C-alpha cells in the first residue's frame, strides 16, 4: 500500500509539473512575441537571396527562426562555427536556434555565400 501511495504521489507531482510547465512555456512565448518590437524580431525571413533583417538583436535564451521564402534552397551556417549549421532549407522550411552567450554571431548561406547576416545576442 505504501508503495502504491508513493507512486500515486509521484504521478500526481509529475502531472502537476507538466500542467504547470505547459502554460508557463506558452506564456513565455507570448511575452517574447509581444516584446518583439522592443527586443527585436525573432524571425528572419529569407527572400530574394537576402536575410531580412540582416542584423537581428535578441536576448540570450531567446529563439531565432529563419524561414525560407525563396524557390532556391538556402542554409544557415555560422562563420566561426559557433552553432550547428542547418540542412538545406527548401521553400517555406524553417530552422531555429536558441541564442546563447552574449556576443556577435556572423552567419551566411553556404549555397549562396554572398548572403550574410548577423545575430547580436544581449544579456
Amino acid at each position: 500500500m505504501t508503495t502504491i501511495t508513493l507512486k500515486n504521489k509521484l504521478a500526481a507531482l509529475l502531472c502537476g509539473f507538466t500542467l504547470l510547465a505547459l502554460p508557463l512555456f506558452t506564456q513565455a512565448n507570448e511575452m517574447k512575441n509581444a516584446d518583439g518590437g522592443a527586443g527585436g524580431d525573432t524571425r528572419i525571413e529569407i527572400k530574394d537571396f537576402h536575410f531580412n533583417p540582416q542584423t537581428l538583436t535578441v536576448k540570450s535564451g531567446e529563439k531565432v527562426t529563419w524561414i525560407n521564402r525563396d524557390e532556391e534552397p538556402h542554409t544557415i551556417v555560422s562563420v566561426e562555427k559557433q552553432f550547428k549549421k542547418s540542412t538545406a532549407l527548401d521553400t517555406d522550411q524553417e530552422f531555429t536556434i536558441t541564442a546563447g552567450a552574449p556576443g556577435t554571431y556572423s552567419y551566411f548561406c553556404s549555397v549562396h555565400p554572398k548572403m550574410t547576416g548577423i545575430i547580436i545576442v544581449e544579456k
Partner: protein
Amino acid sequence: MSDYISHDHEDDGIDRRGFLHCMAWAGTGLLWTVSGGVLASKTLAQIAKAAGPLPATDLSFLQISDSHIGFSKEANKDVTETFKIALDRINSMPTPPAFLIHTGDITQLSKPEEFDTFDQVLKSCKTKDVFYVPGEHDVLNDGGKLYRDRYLKSVEAKGSGWYSFNKNGVHFIGLVNVLDLQAGGLGQLGDEQLEWLEADVKDLGTSTPIVVFAHIPLWAVYPQWGWGTSDSERALGYLKRFGSVTVLNGHIHQVLQKVEGNVTFHSAMSSAFPQPAPGTAPSPGPMNVPAEKLRSVLGLTSVQYRQGNNALAIVDSNLS
C-alpha cells in the same frame, strides 16, 4: 507558332505540349565540335534542322547542364519531362556525340531519390559516356559524398572530385568550385585543386586544345549575384600559354560568352528553367517566362579559334 500550340484552352497562347516543346529549346544543350584545334558550338535545334549528318569532325561532344531534378515550382513544374525531351533531341542527332558533359546541378536538393530519377531517365540516352562536375545543389548536405559515389566512377578523381582526361588530342579538365565556399565570397577552387591543375597541364604542349568545365563561371559574370569564382584568375594563369582554351560552365541558366585572348568562356542553358540576365531582377532565382517568347531569346553561338594567329570569329543568332 502552330507547330507548338495545339490545345490553347485558356486562349493565352500556351498549352502543355507547346510549353514543354519550347522549354526543350531552352534546355536541350549545346553541341561542341573540335576539328583541327578549332572549337565551335551549335544548339541542338540548329542541328535538328540540318538535313544531313554533321560535317566530319575529329571529335564532337555535348554539354548539358542544370537539370535540377526535383524542382517543381512555377518556372517549370516538370523538369523531368524537359530533361527527357533534351535527351530525345540528343538521341535524334544524325551524328551522335562521343560523350556528354554535365556541368552540375543534376538535382535540386541533393536527395537520393532525385539522383535516382536522373539516373533512370538518363538510361534512355544512346550516348553512354557522361562526365560530370557538381553544382552547389548536388552537394547540399554531405559535402558531395553522394555525388562522388555515383558520378566519378569512370575517372581518376582527386580531392573533392576534380580530374582530367584526354580525347582525340584535346585535354579536358573538370573542376569543382562549389565546395567550402566562404562567407561573402564567390565560387572557389582552393589551393589543393589549383596546385593539382598547375601540375596537370605542366607537361602539355601549347598547341594542345584545352577544355575546362566547372559549374560556376570561371569569369566574373556578375559577382553581386555570386556569379564568378574568387580564385579563377590563378587557374587561368596556368592556362595562359595555351593557344586554345575553352571554359564551359552552367549555373546561370543562359548563354553568355566572353573571349579574352585565347580563352573563350561560355555558359550553357539549363534543361529545367531560365534565370534572369545579370542584374535585371531582385535575385537570380528561377524566372517565369511565357512559352511563346522563349524562342526569341534563345539562340546559337558559333565560336571558332584559329591557332597560330589567334584570330577568332563569333556568330550569334536567335531561333525566331
